[in-house]
């Protein structure tokens, strides 16, 4: 297996966007596929009086390199730099052994308004695979770059991309002699544009995206005990939804966005409840002396999986979202917890204790086979990308909390690090449907 040289691929995003130097996540590829598709991305043409606020071709190049599925060819080898269809000479790209070619241009059409167009070619066939044009404001330039990456990724690999998405995560900064600061943040899938949603001197955990991607449910200890809040990311408005006696934890959205499943111990010990958000009415789902927590709704809304130690050790169970008995899904090992569904509903990611370590695994629901994807020992909080191809999770490297992602087949790995402090509790957003501006 060809291993990527991690150092070569460190994307020092901090250098590119120094405004966010303190909070930004840097990403490195720790493992790629055996052979990525060789792709040439020509710097996009731009004829404007000043530099563009975002360099679109750089963003695309970084996205594709980071995916581990492409070998991005170095620009210094290019013999021509076409921006228009008529200027493409396929022979120039066959010499470089490029299989795919991306060209494009940006034009200012009004103050603060840009037209971005791009074309993707099959170099061997000598034909265009696809092409799009977008008219957008400057604030959408990065988003469009990620959308273009998604299109290229899908056309070449046959799988949908998930670059135009966001991740939520919790950071903990603990400067010496000062009380720790916890922040719930949201950033683009490449770690850029981090925004702080909440900051608190007390722990924050379990962020969960609403299905529309405009709200986050999370657990905050700001009142010295766990309570569940929902925060609107557009207007910042915040609702306290659960402050019952005992623990209030593990919020999970129903696929229709109308209910929240959660773990409450108001009746004595941790049980699964669902709350209808409109009426705030609660329904108790489990009745068991054991710990029942970490609910997750299936994408079709029919089932709820959760963690329970009713058989002596934590294991994953599944029950109907309309109530009833629960069926045990995991039998391998003495610790399986925090299940999350893939978007197609066919598998779940989970934390599994394996050879003494806590690792990320995927359980196929059809034949119940479990594949362990990681080799580190303190892995937790797995969350699928909306394309179901990558899982982001929290782990520890040299004593520090970092995020990592792994492809669902275990072949591609990335590491997301903060310059200082710990980062944990990642949650990958759903697709952002509002940001589709294709023409």
């Amino acid at each position, binding site marked *: 297996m060809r291993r990527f040289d991690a150092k070569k691929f460190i994307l020092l995003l901090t250098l590119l966007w120094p405004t966010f130097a303190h909070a930004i996540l840097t990403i490195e590829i720790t493992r790629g596929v055996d052979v990525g598709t060789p792709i040439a991305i020509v710097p996009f043409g731009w004829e404007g009086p000043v530099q563009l606020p975002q360099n679109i071709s750089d963003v695309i190049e970084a996205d594709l390199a980071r995916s581990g599925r492409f070998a991005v060819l170095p620009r210094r080898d290019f013999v021509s730099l076409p921006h228009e269809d008529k200027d493409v000479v396929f022979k120039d790209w066959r010499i470089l052994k490029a299989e795919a070619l991306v060209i494009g241009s940006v034009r200012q059409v009004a103050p603060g308004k840009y037209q971005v167009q791009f074309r993707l070619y099959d170099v061997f066939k000598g034909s265009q695979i696809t092409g799009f044009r977008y008219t957008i404001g400057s604030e959408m330039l990065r988003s469009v770059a990620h959308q273009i990456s998604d299109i290229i990724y899908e056309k070449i690999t046959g799988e949908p991309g998930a670059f135009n998405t966001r991740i939520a995560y919790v950071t903990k900064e603990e400067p010496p002699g000062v009380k720790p600061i916890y922040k719930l943040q949201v950033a683009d899938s490449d770690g850029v544009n981090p925004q702080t949603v909440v900051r608190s001197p007390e*722990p924050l*955990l*379990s962020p969960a995206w609403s299905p529309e991607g405009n709200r986050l449910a999370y*657990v905050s*200890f700001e009142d*010295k*005990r*766990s309570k569940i809040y929902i925060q609107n990311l557009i207007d910042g408005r915040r609702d306290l939804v659960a402050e019952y006696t*005992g*623990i209030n*934890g*593990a919020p999970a959205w129903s696929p229709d966005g109308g209910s929240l499943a959660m*773990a409450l*111990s108001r009746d004595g*010990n*941790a049980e699964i409840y669902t709350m209808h958000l409109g009426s705030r009415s609660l329904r108790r789902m489990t009745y068991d002396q054991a*710990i029942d*927590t*970490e609910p997750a709704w299936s994408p079709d809304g029919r089932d709820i999986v959760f*963690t329970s*130690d009713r058989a002596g*050790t*934590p294991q994953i169970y599944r029950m109907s979202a309309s109530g009833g008995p629960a069926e045990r899904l995991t039998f391998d090992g003495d*610790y399986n*917890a*925090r299940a999350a569904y893939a978007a197609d509903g066919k598998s779940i990611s989970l*934390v599994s*204790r394996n050879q003494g370590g*806590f690792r990320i695994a995927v359980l196929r629901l059809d034949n119940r086979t479990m594949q362990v994807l990681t080799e580190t020992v*303190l892995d*937790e*909080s797995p969350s699928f990308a909306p394309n179901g191809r990558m899982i982001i999770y929290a782990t*520890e490297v040299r*004593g520090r909390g970092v995020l990592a992602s792994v492809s669902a087949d275990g072949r591609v790995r990335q590491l997301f690090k903060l310059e200082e402090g710990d980062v944990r*509790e990642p949650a990958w957003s759903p697709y952002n449907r509002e940001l589709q501006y294709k023409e």
Partner: protein
Amino acid sequence: MKNRKHLVASLLVAFILAGCAGDKAVKPAAGDKDAVPTQTTPAGGEFGPSGAALSDREKQKRADLLSQRRVHFAFDSSAIDTEGRAIVEAHAAHLVANPQLRLTLEGNCDERGTREYNLALGERRAQAVERLMKVLGVAGNRIKTVSYGEEKPLCQEHNESCWRQNRRAEIAY
């Protein structure tokens, strides 16, 4: 903090009433509001439920146990072992003798496993101590429980000795 003052005050009263300062007795500094009984301070008096006179050695043992505020647990367990039981018994006896005291039991876990499961496990640890205290005669309305899961570790290293310190229920007056 107020409750802690109560504890110190009641210990002092018990100490004075006992009127039998051993030759090694160290008098807690007056006005030291944060003073808690330590192993070098045999401040324990006759607060046993029976009220019977205790030998010096037993008093010392009581004081030692009362100075301990942490009950430790095995991984993924909320079972209280012999050592932990002795600590809980000492505090329960103290609470029975001092009906004005209230306490909070804080459940905690080590970093391994998932945060939400640990939140529930921390609660179960606090509840295990609560249950034992109730059996030993402490009224339930004097006890509050809270779980911090794995969010408030005492020790930050990633090894068993650290993990053991972090798997605990804290008895806070």
